[in-house]
């Protein structure tokens, strides 16, 4: 990343290739909006290009990327009119595999239920599970992104998982 700062814009192309899918996954799980998430990928990278001089080199590029992404999500939520809430049931249809028939019906049903349960989590809880489970980040990195300690990240992840398990088992009954 320090090389990008020095003006090596091509290096940003490589960083984009490496990270944009993960970034999209994060944005999607946090908003469940396909197109808006694609736009937000662009916005995040725009900001990294524009503010490459403010990147101090402290911490990882990935942490910086998610920090910007979290702000972009907040800006995006503010812009959306209040009341554009979506039904948790629709969400499963927007997810990969939701409409494709190549997977076993049972697994699809199971995933759809889990998606619905995830959609019911608070944003904070869904965020930490997305970062740890889907983005496969370590708690130390997650703590850095969220501005909390590694221990606090572990505790929050535990509570989030517990809540998810409770919602999910209630739904299955």
């Amino acid at each position, binding site marked *: 990343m320090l090389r990008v700062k020095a*003006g090596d814009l091509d290096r940003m192309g490589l960083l984009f290739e490496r990270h*944009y899918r993960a970034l999209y996954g994060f944005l999607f799980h946090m908003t469940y909006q396909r197109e808006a998430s694609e736009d937000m990928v662009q916005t995040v990278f725009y900001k990294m290009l524009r503010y490459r001089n403010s990147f101090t080199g402290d911490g990882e590029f990935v942490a910086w990327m998610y920090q910007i992404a979290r702000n972009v999500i907040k800006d995006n939520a503010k812009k959306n009119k209040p009341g554009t809430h979506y039904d948790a049931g629709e969400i499963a249809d927007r997810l990969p595999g939701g409409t494709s028939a190549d997977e076993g019906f049972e*697994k699809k049903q199971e995933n759809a239920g889990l998606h619905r349960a995830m959609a019911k989590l608070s944003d904070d809880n869904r965020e930490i599970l997305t970062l740890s489970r889907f983005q496969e980040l370590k708690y130390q990195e997650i703590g850095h992104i969220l501005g909390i300690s590694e221990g606090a990240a572990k505790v929050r992840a535990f509570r989030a*998982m517990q809540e998810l398990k409770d919602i999910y088992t209630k739904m299955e009954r």
Partner: protein
Amino acid sequence: MKMNCGQYEEKFSAWVNNELTTAERAEFEKHLAGCDGCMQEFTAMQQVWDLMGTIEAPEPSAHVPVKFKAMLNTFKESAEEKKGISIKEQLARLWQWQPRWPLAYSLVIVLISFTCGYFVFRTGSAGKQDEQLKALSSQVHELKQTMMLALLENPSASERIRGVSYTSEIKHADKEVIDALFATLNNDPNVNVRLSTLDALTHLASHPEVRQGLIQSIIQQDSPLMQSAIADVMLKLQEKGSVNSFKQLLKQKDLNPGVKDKIRQTITQLI
């Protein structure tokens, strides 16, 4: 659950994420084996965790890398533009930039080349030639201005950014251009467009009405990114007239704490 079960919550998070050392892992599993409460709760949670692993990652469409590359190229171009580009190249770029108007452009370009040739052949006096070349460059200038104003109305944010970036090539921005830029700065729904507009207006800060407009814009911005960018600009311009607007902004209830700090700093540095 037993009294000391709470300490295994953090351990559980680390355990499912494979972040325990072998010793810690053995200790954790030993507790599980001897504690029905934890065993039951953690096993159920681990099953959900495992199930999450079967969820496919959502895939972005192919537009995403294409749009990124276009943006990266725009950044590279603007880095090059700072080094200075000839009128001929600028015209060539104009041509590429607005494919919807190719006919109008080719006509103008043909007209310009024709007029050029005409002047070169016809005029003997160097002074007169100079004057005519000036008239010619003012035509090019007008063309750019028309084009910029049209781009600012475009529904696509990246087209509007192009429109904004055009102002750096307009030497004498008139009222119409300045008004259009402020309308964009204060109303455009896209924060990237607003940021680029702020950039463009900063370059025009020698106009007193631009400085005034920027100061008035301070309290109209609600995005933390814009608020902090505008603070940077005011500091760069050493615009003391902005202090009151910043103080007003500080009174807003939901102001981002980071922005609040920054604005306080900016005020101190300006006074």
